[in-house]
């Protein structure tokens, strides 16, 4: 088929610029994929944290039976889903993980000063006001020294994370804009460098569609290449990516970021489609803007 062959010839003749475009598009789409995953995950975390909120309760005694008393009382409070006793070892390891300096100091002083605490989980579908009510009831229980809610702190963290996530999506669109810009430039160049040949072909009665068809094929091949490059790079950079993400957010107590195979396929597919759409759009635009007799 002539147009297919013309497309292959076109790629061969412009190998360098084609390669550059593939590399450029792949990097942009790769960045888009990374940002997209990240934003998506952040927003998802946001949802999760809203849904599975818990509070820590400190007990004013270090006696095991006192702590268990408090636990039975807590379990009867309306709005509480479950509760568990945090062992001193667990508390210590939490400290040494998140506040190593403090943990060292505590270690020096011996186990006695570590307060006994419980973790209380609310019912999943609890409303904001019910939740406040529950926290107040918990604070009123005898034997409870302090309820570490941190709702306000969390609330502000949650909004900022939300904005971060949304900002990521915005960045995503901007990057696609950049991609389109590069693509439009590419076809503008192509038109310029091939102007003579195109007007020749035009003089044989070629329609605009006939002129753009080899470009469409070329764009398709390039998009497939871009999808593959993105897929391979993501697969290769996966471990590194996860490490970076989890270093940042693992400490804050977020779920570890995971990345599934279906996600990868989705990204490869989306990259191909986004790239192909950009090619279609830019080649069409270039041709529309070109004055043909």
């Amino acid at each position, binding site marked *: *088929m*002539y*147009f297919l062959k013309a497309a292959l010839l076109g790629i061969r*003749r412009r190998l360098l610029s084609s390669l550059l475009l593939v590399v450029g598009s792949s990097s942009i789409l790769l960045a888009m994929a990374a940002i997209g995953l990240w934003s998506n995950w952040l927003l998802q975390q946001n949802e999760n944290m809203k849904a599975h909120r818990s509070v820590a309760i400190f007990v004013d005694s270090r006696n095991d039976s006192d702590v268990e008393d408090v636990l039975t009382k807590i379990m009867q409070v309306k709005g509480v889903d479950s509760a568990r006793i945090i062992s001193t070892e667990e508390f210590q390891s939490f400290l040494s993980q998140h506040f190593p300096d403090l943990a060292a100091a505590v270690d020096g002083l011996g186990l006695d000063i570590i307060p006994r605490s419980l973790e209380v989980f609310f019912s999943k579908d609890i409303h904001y006001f019910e939740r406040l009510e529950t926290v107040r009831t918990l604070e009123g229980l005898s034997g409870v020294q302090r309820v570490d809610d941190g709702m306000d702190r969390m609330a502000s963290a949650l909004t900022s994370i939300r904005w971060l996530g949304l900002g990521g999506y915005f960045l995503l669109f901007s990057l696609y804009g950049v991609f389109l810009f590069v693509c439009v430039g590419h076809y503008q160049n192509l038109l310029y460098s091939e102007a*003579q*040949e195109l007007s*020749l*072909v035009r*003089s*044989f*009665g*070629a*329609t605009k569609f*006939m002129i753009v068809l080899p470009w469409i094929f070329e764009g398709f091949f390039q998009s497939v290449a871009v999808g593959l490059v993105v897929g391979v790079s993501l697969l290769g950079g996966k471990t590194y990516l996860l490490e970076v993400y989890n270093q940042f957010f693992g400490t804050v107590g977020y779920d570890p970021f995971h990345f599934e195979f279906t996600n990868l396929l989705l990204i490869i597919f989306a990259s191909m489609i986004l790239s192909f759409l950009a090619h279609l759009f830019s080649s069409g635009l270039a041709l529309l803007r070109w004055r043909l*007799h």
Partner: protein
Amino acid sequence: MRVSLKQVTKAYHQNSLVLKNLNLDLAEGGFLFVAGDSGAGKTSLLKLIVGEEFPTSGTVTCGGIRLIEGAGSSLQIRKRIGVVHQDYRLMKERTVFENVAIPLFFGRHGRSTKPLNFMGSAALRLTEEVLQSLGLSTKLLDAKVKELSGGEQQRIAIARALINKPDLLVADEPTGSLDHDHTWTVMDLFQKLNIQGMTVIVATHDRDIIRKVRKPTLHLSAGSVRVDERDGACIF
């Protein structure tokens, strides 16, 4: 294909007329020479006829369709016209086959209305035929055009114009780079195709050709027109 120009004036700049009030009516199957000194406007006239340029005033009609700038209608007409440009306009980095066969993929062939689906062999066979009719070896098929001599390139340009079996051939100095024998191979072929029904317009400097072929001739000189009418095919 009938070609008619009515009161055609062409000016590239405001106060220099290249063609002035030119009337021309070439019947289908006619043969016309366009003669004149360098700069007389031969190329300009041919460009008007193939729709590459448009008149400043007046009308150009080819095959019953008026050529208007920006109107897609001329696209259909172009498929039926074979053009030999004075500067050849070949794709120098491409092979002879690619150059000669290219109209087959975009235009149409002979009387059929659609471009034929030329998978490999059909296009190759037609290309070989047209090269042979112009005295070119089929060994040249895979050579790059830039590796050919000037005369060979000129005949490649002619082959490309003829491969579609056009209804109208417009040739601008088609023998300018050819030796005597090849000039006559080309002119004999044009005459043969003309007898088979193709309308032919040839611009040339070569008085020898005009004298021997004995066809109507349009003499252009700086805006004015003189006509030698030798058979009835041409009315001015």
